């Protein structure tokens, strides 16, 4: 575990409700290093890194944010919902960043398995290997998270385009069957009068996604 300047002070802060109601440690009585090391060992056994996990969680959030508060089907078996509240949270370690109160809930349709995270909890996983204590409202068990995120489809190699009106994503690799657009058709190659298959918005309403 990356050494915090004062472990005792950090543990007290994590137990308290100063940053979030209920704190980050739930009912867990284990010392912080033990919580972190145990989860790290589990993660190693699953062959995943915190960096890869965090990157996928952030991709889910980006995909689902276009739903403007409605659930989005981000893969055949995965639904995600992003809810946002106002205000910013700080990292208890600490760090200079501020974290938006954006909560993402990912659900697997076939099994009902679900995981929920916030921008802060993603940072805590990536920067500090901290999945939070047992009983904390935002703790996710690493095996659950890994299982859900391994079914996330790989990033498309050609950029996709987002309809800013309704959140529909045009993926050149898939094309648009309804409009007889073959898979592999670049967005630029779509006819000028092509419209969003979901909401009918014109081509200029689409934004390229990084």
């Amino acid at each position, binding site marked *: 575990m990356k050494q915090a300047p004062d472990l005792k002070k950090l543990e007290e802060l994590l137990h308290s409700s100063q940053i979030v109601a209920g704190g980050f440690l739930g009912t867990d009585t284990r010392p912080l290093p033990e919580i972190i090391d145990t989860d790290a060992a589990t993660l190693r056994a699953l062959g995943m890194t915190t960096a890869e996990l965090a990157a996928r969680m952030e991709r889910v959030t980006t995909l689902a944010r276009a739903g403007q*508060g409605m659930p989005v089907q981000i893969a055949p078996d995965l639904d995600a919902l992003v809810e946002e509240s106002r205000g910013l949270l700080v990292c208890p370690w600490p760090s200079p960043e501020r974290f938006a109160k954006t909560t993402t809930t990912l659900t697997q349709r076939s099994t009902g398995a679900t995981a929920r995270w916030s921008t802060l909890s993603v940072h805590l996983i990536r920067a500090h290997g901290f999945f939070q204590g047992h009983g904390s409202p935002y703790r996710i068990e690493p095996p659950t998270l890994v299982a859900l995120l391994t079914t996330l489809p790989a990033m498309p190699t050609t950029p996709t385009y987002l309809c800013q009106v309704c959140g529909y994503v045009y993926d050149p690799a898939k094309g648009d069957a309804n409009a007889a657009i073959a898979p592999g058709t670049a967005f630029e190659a779509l006819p000028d009068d092509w419209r969003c298959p979901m909401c009918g918005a014109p081509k200029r309403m689409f934004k390229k996604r990084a």
Partner: protein
Amino acid sequence: MLSFLATVGIVSAIAAALAGVLVFAERFISNYGDCTVDINAGTRTFTVKGGKALLGTLVEQKLFVPSACGGRGTCGYCKIKIPEGAGPLLPTEAPFLSAAERAANVRLACQVKVRNDIKIEVPSELLSVREFTCTVERIRPLTHDIREFRFRLLDPAEISFIAGQYVQLLAPVYPKSSEEVYRAYSIASDPRDKKAIELIVRLVPGGICTTYCFEYLKEGDPVKFNGPYGEFRMADTTAPMIMIAGGSGMAPIKCILQHMQNIGSTRAACYFFGANQVGELFEQDWMKQCEQILPHFTFVPVVARPETAWHGETGLVTQAVARAYTDLSSHEAYLCGSPGMIDACIGVLTELGMPQQKIYYDKFA
């Protein structure tokens, strides 16, 4: 045995003497004398006896620099620019400040001690922020998770604010929270009603302040808030307006609409209110009445997935806006909602020709 006791006695005496030296030093030697605090290049100055942290010094002068941890250096909220007199950067501040902030002389007010004359820069609105004590006059449910809170002011007895501004409400220590926290809420009430304010608050699951408001606050209870804050307000033009806000985001829009009624505005305005379901709509009667009072105001509720019979607009607000307009080059937009919704709206509005600088949104997060 005797030499052991003698050793203990001597060590204790030395420790006591050292403690005495420290007390003496603190009382007589670390006296920093009078220090002048200069705010915003002389806009306001005051003189204090040095030695205390800047945050506490400013709060004593009724300058409410935001803080969420009571000055303990754990929240990072109290960042202010200190061009002169702050002394070297402390290790307790460093983790909260990015490289860009450090280059701009941003410091943590709770960690910097006033030891000499000091020059600071704060947002100008901070100089007119007051702390208000009031009492809960009425709590009105609007939906299953949104309530309107009306607070009657006690001291000061009146507030002056511009429609669109917000206040920082104090949630005290209560069984689910061990710290005082401040949370921002836009004022929803009529700016002409100076003796009270109304807030529209949505219960956030696990939210410290909203849980306090919903589960503990009762009519007659005392309440404190600081304000008013914020630059979100109606621009002084005659351009037609589009307003987009759902849920508790209605608060500053409702406030602006009341201001428009007060001044007899004839500006064209269309308010798109987005909700996921019909059950999330509220204040529809108030909006219909507003349509009667303001000659060119239209209220357009937009329900994403109606769960019951619904004859109005459906889908997302962005879809409703895209259906309604082809050219927004002469319009202004006022947005209040989640960052995701705001981003989507900005994308659509700019594509429809609205200049980016005519899109106003509530940024207090």
